[in-house]
């Protein structure tokens, strides 16, 4: 079952990368861009019987490794939902 994980810098936490990309886009002439945030997009296969089983696994992985709860938020999608 395919799982897509989205990891984003928490609101209120400094996101220097997002800031750098935003100002670079601006100077490239994309003046109408704002609120740029750069996070991680992780896709993986979980060999699970049910979607809910895959969801539980995914949650565990996010908390164990994929996201850093202190500075990042995460959400994920499991195939066929």
């Amino acid at each position, binding site marked *: 079952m395919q799982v897509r994980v989205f990891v984003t810098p928490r609101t209120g936490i400094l996101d*220097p*990368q997002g800031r750098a990309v935003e100002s*670079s886009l601006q100077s490239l002439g994309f003046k109408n861009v704002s609120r740029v945030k*750069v996070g991680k997009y992780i896709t993986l296969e979980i060999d699970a019987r049910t979607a809910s089983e895959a969801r539980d696994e995914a949650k565990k992985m996010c908390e164990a490794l994929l996201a850093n709860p202190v500075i990042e938020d995460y959400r994920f999608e499991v195939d066929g939902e």
Partner: protein
Amino acid sequence: MKWGVVRFPGSLDDGDALHALADVMGQDARILWHKDESLGGVECIVLPGGFSYGDYLRTGAIARFSPIMKSVAKFAADGGLVIGTCNGFQILCEAHLLPGALTRNRSLSFVCERVWLRVENASTPFTRATKLGDVLRLPIKHGEGLYIAPEDELRQMEERGQVTLRYVDADGRESDAANPNGSMRAIAGVANERFNVFGLMPHPEHAVEPMLGGTDGLKIFQSIAGSAR
């Protein structure tokens, strides 16, 4: 020979390159500011190591758009000599002045150590002072030096002799252990098809004084100096 070392915001080895060229080799070298478009009539441009613009998003991705890079591209198109070390190599790839791309080391961690490199093509303006198969000792210090290019492109590059330096062990043999970042085909340095643009992850500017760990880096700069048009 007149050299220009480009200073981007976040460049770190610009001072070291200047020191190597001017103080150690007595060359006429100056800093070029990234916001200027003039190259001040230099004959060789050095894109130094560092973390230009913090290397945010992708290494070299943002620096590539600095005003001076337009002039650098034109300079290269006219056959001018351009060398990029480390971050400079990454910028040249992002600017499509060199093929391929550089990404996270296989280990995912930054690595600073001296490595051995085998000269795979000694007839480029950047390696002329060496002999084919020579093994050079140069330091690397990077977190994103894994060289990547599509297989078919790699094949052509090898045929044309664009692969100029390869990571090897002390005896000049290739091995997985001797490949410090997992680069495809252990590639450490490549030139463009015209052989006037050269990029390498190792730091020749950090191997120019015996007291600071050897002088093999001089061979690269001496090659360039000897290739002045």
